[in-house]
């Protein structure tokens, strides 16, 4: 018994009956003897509690003696304890023995007497998988920190995460990596194979948590004797099941939003009658509030409940508290019951908008001490009661007119908010949480920033941070722009300032550089835009203030945003009026300019108001001596000296915190995660920094994305958490006198300012920005390709519809239309007919000499190839050729990539290499570059190879090709950029591999209500995953299962197939025939035409009538026919939501049914299913599928 007791990671002092139930199925749970010296008599009477303690029968004496029992201490040799420093920090280690160390040394026995040591040598860390809305890059950050912490403690780690673009999936951190689906089946295989003695479930988001709970429920962890480290499973279950959770909090008199758990629509309506409208519906076990929403009346509730119940077996009906403040606390608890709140945050938007979609400030600004500490005390009480061991997030609703509050949610795991809190405070939450999971206590751990003080403290912020989400909803058609209780944003930014105005205006520019700051956008119905929150409400407020002269009261009444925030926005508006009033830059006094900078105005923003340009404002500003000051983020408001390198700039200061004698190399990060740019560029940035440090160079990172590893201050020598604008990058470059800037690893954003920096004598490392500009300018690029004899599809820039149609007629349809000015809908489109082109040009775009369109011949059908390469002085050093599964026409970011390709012949491979070589030479490339090439096969003769795109920077496939080929392309590129230790060229594609890897996009359709799940020339995926296999079938099999909400078709399940006139007949028949004949699935279609076509090919199918507007009836149709899977291979984008193919695709998403929407992928998938079904039938029991192998087993070595 005592053995168990000592190893238990979770001492819980007072355990609720809810937490106690099913305790037998969980790991042995026991609690410590936390006894008060004196207990209030009344409390004993009034709040009976169950106390579990192993001493209950043996040595219960409610005295302090129990704490220092020598009997306890004998179980833990104190010599095993050492104090840890934060991993790999460049900053100077503390020289003298710190007071903290002394105190800890003296009190070691006391601190540890009560803490169980967790004895593990090998731990499996569950990752979160592909990036999706609601679960993004923050889990790369938290997982990386956890692995660092484990590694530092000498624990070997196994990581399971199919997200190949992450930094955590590297042998620099984990000892073993599995690129496999984070599902119960695969994890069971891996656990059986690796037999770790511990598992960490709280670092992989909701995915990791859900899988962990299932593993426990299935008894896998118990069977294999694997300890759950940190927060115990039962706590996770209670915090996840809203009904249990509400009951648990009731036990400690903490108010929870009143809610009723229901599993039918009728029950939901009945519950709502009792509670009263408006109602909020939430679904249990869902990512970021999926399937949640508001209902004002029974009709709305009916349709909402129907949808939510299709996503979750149980929903909660709760009273809506619209207009209340929303406040969050990040809490940490160790096994000795020490608790701290690391950060609190307040939402700019009142309750009603998911916190992930809210503008958030930290710390809270409108809460009094009474409110702040009431909620803080409650948060600590909650996590003690629930028994969290590690990190936890508590969300509250606070009545703006009283002390009334309610708990909305508790996340007993690292979350998006905790990543934000980490970056906002400098406190490494994930690292500390991992240490606590290993049995360390807060007082013994060092504050990673000061290194001389303890981790058991609460950061004090002498700045304010503002987080703004990034949505990208305009990328999708038919999507609802309203935001609410279900999260829709794809990324977020964090800005640091010393006034709210400064941090907010920075954040607005960070979200989208096309915004210059707080500004107005036109809204036809302004009052509605203020009342009903959308992704653009902040600019509706701007419109109301700047253009419509609304008063603060009016805006407050419409939006319910706290007036304090609105007053601050008013300050910005006042400065703006003052500047506008000055009319000319000459009239702007030094004081006014200073005031504007203190309020966060950018030079460009000021210039736009005065009809001048940014350079002029910059010049005048510098003449006045107005330049930003660099301040440190040190967790304790400068109270103790801290050698931190975590920096930001501000105009609200008079001194610098640092000296500028590093002269480091600047690496510009990728900025906000958005569709088209996400974690892969963070991997590139971090890889570049690591390579620079390996070369012995000082590094300086500029980035502002709180979800990244590149903004971990232990990754570089200096971290500027700052804007990536020309203005700010120049400020930093000049101040630091940096020796050079790398602009080619952060995606497109840094490239956009490269040329201007170059023109202003900034040393841009590698390829000249003049070449970058040539590659980006369609005319110059095309001219150069012609000169070097590289083929490209025909294109022309045209300024009238007639010319456009004439050109299209000449080159033949289909054509790709890229307007330079877009009115609505997606920017690019493929037009298959003259009518379609005509419609496109007249409806969606305006064509004129001012707004020309570019028309390109669209080659179809053709294969597409991605070439990623690194060159040095015009010579290719390494290159990778990946084959797209989909035909050309699907955006390369949404494409399924196969590497190394086995379906391209040696001759073509050689020609591809030659093209890369020619391009590298023509543009004198030094550094990374990427090309997309179309391959059109000719029955007689060699394939046509046409370059469709070329970027002289790292691309999103760099981490994939690096990890598959076992050569870090960014490492090579960085050496080339620095002209140091440059390796000899090597042809990686010449080495034959016995494996293939497949990269698959991760979509977030479920989140984007109404959006058409269709693949086209505009990118729509939010993330990606990749898996290895003996061939592409096996790799695709596990890769596609790694995507969220995907599962393989159940044997015998009904399959809905669909197509349109452009669908490839061969592909369609291959898929249908395999599904029906080989795999025995009943087929259904939504149109008699398709059924007829299948019948002609001897394939039996049933036609279903899909109701257009009645979701419930539609659901019934799916239910009645046991539809388990949808293949919709239509090639034309739906123009209306009544399109049968749109309905089929959208239903699949809304009803949680897997969807395949590309014909080439469908062919690959059915082939993989056929092979795998065969393989598993011949598999011996206990044998693992052949794809269950670690990364190093596949590539034959360990690789960083």
């Amino acid at each position, binding site marked *: 018994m005592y053995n168990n007791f000592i190893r238990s990671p979770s001492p819980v002092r007072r355990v609720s009956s809810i937490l106690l139930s099913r305790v037998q199925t969980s790991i042995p749970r026991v609690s410590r003897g*936390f006894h008060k010296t004196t*207990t*209030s*008599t*009344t409390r004993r009477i009034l*709040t009976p509690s169950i106390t579990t303690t192993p001493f209950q029968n043996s040595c219960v004496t409610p005295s*302090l003696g129990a704490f220092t029992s020598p009997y306890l201490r004998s179980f833990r040799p104190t010599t095993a304890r050492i104090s840890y420093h934060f991993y790999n920090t460049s900053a100077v280690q503390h020289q003298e023995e710190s*007071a903290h160390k002394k105190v*800890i040394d003296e009190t070691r026995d*006391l*601190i540890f*007497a*009560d803490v169980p040591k967790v004895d593990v040598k090998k731990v499996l860390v569950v990752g979160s998988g592909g990036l999706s809305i609601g679960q993004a890059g923050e889990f790369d950050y938290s997982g990386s920190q956890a692995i660092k912490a484990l590694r530092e403690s000498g624990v070997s780690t196994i990581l399971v995460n199919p997200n190949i673009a992450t930094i955590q999936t590297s042998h620099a951190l984990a000892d073993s990596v599995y690129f496999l689906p984070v599902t119960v089946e695969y994890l069971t295989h891996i656990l059986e194979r690796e037999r770790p003695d511990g598992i960490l479930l709280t670092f992989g988001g909701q995915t990791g948590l859900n899988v962990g709970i299932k593993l426990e429920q299935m008894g896998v962890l118990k069977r294999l004797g694997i300890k759950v480290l940190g927060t115990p499973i039962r706590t996770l279950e209670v915090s996840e099941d809203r009904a249990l959770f509400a009951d648990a909090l009731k036990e400690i008199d903490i108010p929870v939003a009143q809610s009723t758990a229901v599993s039918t629509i009728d029950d939901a309506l009945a519950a709502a009658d009792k509670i009263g409208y408006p109602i909020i519906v939430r679904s249990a076990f869902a990512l970021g509030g999926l399937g949640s929403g508001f209902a004002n009346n029974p009709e709305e509730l009916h349709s909402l409940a129907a949808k939510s119940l299709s996503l979750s077996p149980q929903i909660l009906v709760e009273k809506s508290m619209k207009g209340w403040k929303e406040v969050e606390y990040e809490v940490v608890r160790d096994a*000795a019951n*020490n*608790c701290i709140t690391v950060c609190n945050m307040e939402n700019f938007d009142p309750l009603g908008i998911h916190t992930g979609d809210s503008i958030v400030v930290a710390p*809270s600004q409108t*809460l*009094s*001490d*009474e409110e*702040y*500490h009431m909620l*803080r*005390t409650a948060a*600590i009480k909650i996590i003690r009661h629930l028994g969290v061991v590690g990190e936890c997030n508590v969300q509250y609703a606070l009545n*703006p*007119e009283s002390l009334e509050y309610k708990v909305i949610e508790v996340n007993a795991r690292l979350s998006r908010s905790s990543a934000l809190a980490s970056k906002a405070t400098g406190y490494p939450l994930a690292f500390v949480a991992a240490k606590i999971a290993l049995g360390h*206590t807060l*007082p013994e751990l060092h504050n990673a920033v000061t290194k001389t003080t*303890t981790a*058991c*403290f*609460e950061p*004090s912020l*002498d700045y304010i941070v503002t987080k703004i989400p990034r949505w990208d909803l305009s990328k999708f058609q038919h999507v609802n722009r309203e935001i609410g209780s279900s999260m829709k944003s794809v990324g977020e930014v964090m800005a640091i300032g*010393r*006034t709210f105005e400064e941090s907010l205006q920075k954040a607005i520019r960070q979200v989208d550089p096309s915004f210059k700051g707080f500004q107005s956008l036109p809204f036809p119905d302004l009052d509605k835009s203020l009342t009903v929150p959308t992704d653009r409400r902040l600019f509706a407020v701007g419109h109301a203030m700047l253009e419509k*002269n609304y*008063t603060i*009261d009016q805006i407050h009444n419409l939006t319910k945003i*706290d*007036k*304090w925030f*609105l*007053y601050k926005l*008013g300050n910005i508006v006042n400065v703006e009026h003052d500047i506008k*009033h*000055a009319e000319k830059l000459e*009239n702007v*006094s030094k*004081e006014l300019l200073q005031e504007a900078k203190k309020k966060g105005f950018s030079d460009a923003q000021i210039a736009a108001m005065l009809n001048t340009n940014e350079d002029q404002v910059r010049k005048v500003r510098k003449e006045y001596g107005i330049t930003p000051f660099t301040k440190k983020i040190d967790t304790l*408001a*400068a*109270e103790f*000296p801290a050698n931190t390198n975590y920096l930001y700039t501000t105009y609200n*200061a*008079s*001194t610098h*915190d640092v000296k500028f004698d590093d002269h480091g190399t600047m690496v510009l990060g990728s900025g906000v995660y958005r569709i088209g740019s996400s974690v892969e560029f963070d991997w590139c940035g971090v890889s570049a920094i690591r390579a620079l440090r390996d070369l012995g160079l000082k590094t300086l990172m500029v980035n502002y994305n709180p979800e990244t590893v590149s903004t971990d201050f232990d990754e570089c020598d200096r971290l500027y958490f700052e804007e990536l604008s020309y203005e700010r990058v120049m400020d930093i470059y000049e101040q630091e006198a940096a020796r050079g800037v790398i602009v080619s690893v952060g995606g497109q954003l840094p490239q956009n300012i490269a040329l201007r920096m170059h023109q202003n004598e900034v040393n841009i490392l590698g390829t000249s920005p003049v070449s970058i500009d040539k590659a980006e300018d369609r005319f110059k690029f095309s001219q150069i390709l012609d000169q070097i004899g590289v083929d490209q599809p025909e294109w022309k820039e045209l300024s009238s519809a007639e010319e456009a149609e004439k050109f299209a007629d000449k080159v033949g349809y289909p054509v790709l239309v890229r307007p330079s000015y877009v009115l609505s809908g997606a920017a690019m489109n493929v037009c298959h007919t003259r009518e379609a082109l005509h419609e496109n040009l007249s409806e969606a775009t305006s064509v004129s000499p001012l707004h020309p369109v570019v028309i390109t011949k669209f080659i179809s059908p053709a294969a597409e190839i991605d070439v990623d390469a690194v060159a040095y002085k015009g010579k290719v050093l390494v290159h990778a050729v990946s084959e797209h599964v989909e035909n050309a026409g699907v955006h390369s970011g949404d494409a399924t990539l196969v590497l190394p390709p086995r379906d391209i012949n040696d001759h073509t491979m050689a020609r591809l290499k030659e093209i890369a070589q020619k391009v590298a030479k023509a543009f004198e490339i030094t550094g990374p570059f990427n090309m997309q090439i179309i391959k059109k096969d000719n029955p007689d003769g060699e394939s046509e190879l046409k370059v469709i795109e070329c970027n002289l920077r790292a691309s999103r496939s760099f981490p994939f090709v690096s990890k598959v080929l076992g050569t870090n392309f960014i490492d090579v590129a960085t050496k080339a950029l620095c002209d140091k230790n440059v390796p000899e060229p090597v042809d990686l594609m010449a080495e034959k591999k016995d494996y293939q890897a497949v990269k698959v996009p991760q979509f977030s359709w479920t989140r984007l209500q109404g959006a058409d799940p269709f693949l086209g020339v505009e990118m729509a995926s939010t993330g990606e995953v990749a898996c290895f296999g003996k061939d592409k079938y096996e790799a695709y099999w596990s890769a596609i299962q790694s995507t969220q909400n995907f599962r393989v078709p159940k044997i015998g399940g009904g399959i809905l197939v669909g197509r349109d006139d452009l669908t490839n007949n061969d592909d369609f028949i291959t898929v249908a025939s395999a599904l029906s004949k080989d795999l025995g699935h009943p087929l259904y279609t939504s149109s008699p035409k398709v059924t007829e076509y299948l019948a002609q090919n001897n394939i039996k199918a049933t036609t279903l009538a899909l109701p257009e507007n009645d979701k419930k009836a539609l659901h019934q149709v799916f239910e009645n026919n046991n539809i388990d899977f949808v293949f919709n291979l239509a090639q034309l984008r739906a123009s209306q939501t009544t399109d049968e193919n749109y309905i089929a695709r959208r239903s699949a998403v809304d009803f949680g049914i897997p969807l395949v929407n590309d014909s080439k992928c469908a062919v690959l998938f059915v082939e993989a299913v056929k092979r795998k079904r065969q393989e598993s039938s011949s598999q011996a029991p206990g044998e693992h599928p052949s794809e269950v192998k670690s990364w190093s087993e596949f590539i034959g070595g360990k690789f960083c």
Partner: protein
Amino acid sequence: MSLLLRRSFVNPSSISITKALSITSLQKCGLATVSDKPFTISSPPPAPYANVNTKPPKAALKLRSGEVFHGTSFGANIPVSGEIVFTTSVVGYPESMTDPSYRGQILVFTQPLIGNYGVPGLFKDQYGLLKYFESDRIQCEAIVVNDYATRYSHWTAVESLGEWCSRHGVPAITGVDTRAIVHILRDQGSTLSKLIVGDDAANENFNKIPYTDPNTRNLVSEVSTAVPVSYNPYGDIKIAVVDCGVKHNILRSLVKRGAAVTVLPWNFDFNKISDQFDGIFISNGPGNPTKAMETVSNLRKAMNSYKRPMFGICMGNLLMGMAAGLDVRKLRFGNRAHNVPALNMVNGKCQITSQNHGYALVDDKFPPSWKKYYVNVNDGSNEGIIHKTLPYRSVQFHPEAKGGPEDTEFLFDEFIDQIRSEKVKREGTKFFVPETIDHRTAQVA
């Protein structure tokens, strides 16, 4: 128009006490009041841009070590001098500013945005104690902030921070790099400073007033009550509070647990009447503890004879420590924060505490009957002492919070429980427990 209105928010001359009072009476009727001054973006600013004269008055701060900081004034137009100290608390300026422990000090807030939620009214609770403040006036000499919110928003607020400061004759400066000041104080240690407002500030005319060192005065006598005052007289246990500058929340914490409290002047010799009390409490207070030697000698007497529970907070810890035979030292720049980890040397638990002190006990050697109770995990300084056998103890931090974390509030429970159980032992009778006990705070940490 807009400029004129904006000026009115910050110009102290436009603020009257009567206005604040009228709002207060409104609030009593149950109307939540927030600042609703018209927001004037409608009209363009007057032409041309030349509003230097409409700007708020300037203010300047000079440290004795020589550094000068310029900013604007938002409080009273009076020059002051005092010891300059900083607090790293992130919330609770009304509580801090009315804390008598800040007497004589110019307070720098590292929290950059100040005044956001205004200042609440002078409401009293059922015991006659102030609901939102720690004493009935602003105690610090002046405040120094980075960014003052001219317009506030909160349901308890009746006036702005600037209006409040002006009414109390307390100058305030905003627009100052507070982090730079912290750097100076941290590196050089505590120093004196002067704050001047108006034309003098523009001209750096600091010589009008001398530097004054509050620590040479007996600050405790300045803030202590002149006569004994009782609260909750019918409580079942009676506690004498030696008022060295007691925060109202200490009194609230005692009376809401059912105790009858008698607040005594700092130098009142309670030994004469100590039999009337079941326990003695020594409060927090400002300045140099060696100025309160009368209290120390009273305590020394009590420690030898009075066997009933004694509890001290902050200054109370220093005075009890001195009475027990320990020395005190002045800390380099003091501990003023809401985030200080204090390790309980009895059970090894670490708690986050609220602090405000410039002196500390020297605790490397202990008199035989005493031992360390709490220690600061960051700098190793003393955070409390406890008697080995008798029910005497004290802590350097503030379990009563206000502002700051409530994690150590259980110390009041323990003190009260101790008093009750001693009383039961002594008198052998049962006692009734009043219903006013707050169970929310009765959780042990």
